[in-house]
């Protein structure tokens, strides 16, 4: 059954607004951040209007209710990814989730399995977002570990041909994206997981661009850690998720230090609580957790399977449309197999900034630039791209607007002797 996108759109007030020159908004920038349904805004303001109090801290009714709401959100996230509740840590963003790992492991004493010694290897890929790249560069710098990375092919797909020399006995960590935020390419996890497992390396998956778009089960993925952001999955800003295997979290040193993550404190030192509390210092982002719960309920009500199918169909449509415009080059896989609805492209002779400006003028919101994946851009031989990204609230008419928009941009600049 196809999604009733017209109905879904009604849940997202911003999609009813007009932008430049009274054009209706065509929002194609969900890979940067998604829009929010009324249910999410309402969940947050209901929390503030009815239950707001510091969780885990007070002995009064509001504190109990706030704690229930906050822990209920944790359970919802756990169910969403097939995990146990105590394995879910709330952070402010996927960026914090990934930094949490890098700092925690940097804090690990030498007898810990998380400790990195000089010469230990951290494996990444050339397709990483800066958030899953720079924290590891810095951990390597601090610990003396070495970075290695998978290259990508001309379509942006991770190249596994030299996997045996990349993941070897010195490899301690493999941190990799599930789906590229530039090319939409989905990572071939099975062989990477198998190789990492066989060398006992920890596997960190950046699920920012996958968890919002198709059903994920951490047990099936067989990874050790998973990071993603609420704001890319119709949830609020200011909340991220870190999932980790129970037995690993249990051994991990804390990252942020402060209230609610301790068992005892003196002026000289402190001892730390069990996960997830150990990793959630201070009064947490309670309203955002509650909003994320509402977002997950919303996605589940629509159905993650349905959303995925819808996006696959729309992406196919967009791929074929883009391919048929002369002068447009897709940066990423041109076939739907193992790719999501992130569509980067170039327009011959017209710089992405100028393309984006022209589309914006028509009410079409896309992103231009390097998409926080500078090494990947270099590898793909471009300085920047224009990127359109799809979500459950997009429909064929949005893609049509994009295609027509590109042609209009081409003819505008073409009439000035630029492009073709």
């Amino acid at each position, binding site marked *: 059954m196809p999604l009733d996108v017209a109905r879904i759109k009604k849940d997202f007030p911003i999609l009813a607004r007009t932008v430049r020159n009274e054009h209706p908004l065509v929002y194609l920038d969900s890979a940067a951040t998604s829009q929010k349904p009324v249910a999410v805004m309402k969940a947050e303001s209901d929390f503030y209007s009815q239950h707001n109090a510091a969780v885990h801290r007070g002995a009064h009714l509001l504190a109990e209710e706030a704690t229930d709401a906050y822990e209920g959100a944790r359970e919802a996230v756990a169910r969403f990814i097939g995990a146990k509740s105590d394995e879910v840590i709330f952070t402010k963003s996927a960026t914090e989730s990934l930094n949490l790992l890098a700092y925690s492991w940097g804090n690990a004493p030498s007898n810990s399995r998380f400790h990195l010694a000089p010469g230990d290897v951290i494996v990444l890929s050339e397709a990483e977002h800066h958030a899953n790249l720079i924290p590891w560069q810095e951990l390597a710098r601090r610990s003396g570990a070495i970075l290695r990375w998978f290259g990508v092919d001309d379509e942006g797909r991770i190249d596994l041909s030299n996997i045996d020399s990349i993941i070897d006995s010195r490899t301690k960590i493999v941190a990799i994206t599930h789906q590229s935020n530039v090319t939409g390419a989905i990572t071939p996890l099975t062989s990477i997981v198998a190789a990492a497992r066989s060398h006992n390396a920890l596997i960190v998956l950046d699920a920012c661009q996958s968890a919002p778009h198709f059903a994920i089960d951490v047990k099936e993925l067989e990874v050790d850690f998973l990071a993603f952001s609420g704001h890319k999955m119709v949830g609020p800003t200011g909340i991220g998720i870190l999932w980790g295997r129970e037995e690993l979290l249990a051994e991990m040193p804390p990252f942020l230090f402060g209230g609610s993550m301790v068992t005892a404190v003196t002026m000289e030192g402190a001892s730390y609580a069990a996960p997830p509390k150990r990793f959630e210092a201070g009064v947490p982002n309670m309203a955002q957790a509650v909003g994320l719960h509402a977002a997950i309920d919303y996605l589940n009500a629509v159905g993650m399977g349905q959303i995925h199918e819808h996006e696959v169909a729309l992406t196919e449509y967009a791929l074929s449309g883009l391919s048929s415009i002369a002068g447009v080059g897709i940066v990423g896989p041109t076939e739907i197999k193992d790719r999501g609805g992130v569509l980067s492209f170039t327009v011959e002779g017209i*710089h992405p*900034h*100028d393309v984006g*400006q022209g589309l914006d003028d028509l009410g079409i919101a896309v992103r231009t630039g390097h998409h926080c994946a500078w090494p990947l851009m270099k590898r793909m031989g471009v*300085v*920047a791209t224009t990127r359109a990204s799809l979500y459950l609230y997009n429909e064929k008419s949005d893609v049509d607007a994009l295609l027509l928009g590109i042609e209009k941009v081409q003819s505008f600049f073409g009439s000035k002797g*630029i492009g073709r």
Partner: protein
Amino acid sequence: MNLESLYQELILDHYKNPLHKGLVSPADASVHHVNPSCGDEVDLNLTIRDGEIQSVSWDGVGCSISQASTSVMSDLVQGRTVDEASQVIDAFMEVMQSKGSTTGDESLLGDAVAFAGVSKYPARIKCALLGWMAFKDALVQLGGYRAKDSGEAK
């Protein structure tokens, strides 16, 4: 489309036929600037003789706005005194920060007034300033730039 006011003919002409593009060496100062939000880059060489800009040349990749703006700038400051060039930079910066409220003084800015429309698009201001910031940086390196007010470059 309403792009005409942003992409004026003059801008697109400079984009298509940029002036002083191609680095002239040797130079007194060489700088490399990047627009971190898009990765656009510019290299700029500057030579000063007796307090005058003897040569500004540049190379780089970027959008029409950044390329044209660098072209206009390099032509505008050529041959001016360092003090005049500093004034031109300040005047252009002011226009860029004006959110469309001023088009700038044409007697000072010449062709650069064509970029006034850019100031309405915050994300593009950095494009328009890329070459200018590189030039200013080169001037500062040579001890030449004089800020209008407090004497402190900002």
